[in-house]
């Protein structure tokens, strides 16, 4: 159980660790999370298609205007739908997606514990 607590702490630290990024890093971070919609399975960061290049320019503009990462994602979601984001946001549609593996981990652990580590009657 202690292991689990440590794991959880690390997990949350990871999610909230703030990195001191400069603009290019921020741009890269955002464009890595955007799907190139005219490519087959590439991010906007990786792609050199017209669409990707335009989108990189646009994201740079929006960053210069002062928008946050989250606001830019929202802006693009309105135009293109959630499909453009590679990181599925945690909402009522994706809660199963994020929690099911964790649930499996916990349940799996419990079953193993019960079957192999508790003395039989």
């Amino acid at each position: 159980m202690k292991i689990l607590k440590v794991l959880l702490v690390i997990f949350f630290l990871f999610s909230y660790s703030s990195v001191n990024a400069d603009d290019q890093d921020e741009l890269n971070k955002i464009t890595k999370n955007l799907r190139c919609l005219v490519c087959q399975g590439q991010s906007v960061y990786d792609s050199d298609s017209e669409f990707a290049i335009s989108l990189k320019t646009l994201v740079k503009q929006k960053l210069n205007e002062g928008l946050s990462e989250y606001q830019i994602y929202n802006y693009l979601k309105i135009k293109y739908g959630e499909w453009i984001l590679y990181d599925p946001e945690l909402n009522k549609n994706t809660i199963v997606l994020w929690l099911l593996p964790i649930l499996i981990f916990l349940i799996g652990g419990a079953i193993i514990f019960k079957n192999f580590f508790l003395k039989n009657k």
Partner: protein
Amino acid sequence: MKKKLLPFFVVIIFGIVFIVFYKGLEDTNIYTPDLNVQKDIPIFNSKDFYSEKVLKSSDIFELDKTYLLNIWSSWCVPCRQEHHLLMILKENDKIDIIGLNYKDNKKNAVKFLQELGNPYEKIFIDLDGTKAIEWGAYGVPESFLIYNNEIIKKYIGPLNEDLISEIKYLIK
């Protein structure tokens, strides 16, 4: 009792998975624009193609009118192929065709229009592609049917005769 429940439970789960995959097959995998995406036209500034004056979106699009916004470029091969259909649609006075010249060189674009004709009431330019993204476009060619400052339908790729007929039908 638990022993008997488990197989039953597992079979049910696989049954559900089967049904989902089966239904998933019937769906086409071409991404069609979501109904949840924006319906209002974007508010933007741009430059007029010929005069290079600054234009506001409200200068171009008026309420209670029907427009077809067509994104085009001189270097875009399918744009050439759909262009004559736009010339035909121009004759219809129920709709105005607006052009968005995308990432283009002015000389080449002017030549393109001289060669194939100009169906556009107004043309504005997008040098870096960001205006097209404001519209939620994927690339070129792409066309938007607009009424009352709302996007009625988006056509990705070149127009063809069927789509023109559809447009004509919708604008009645």
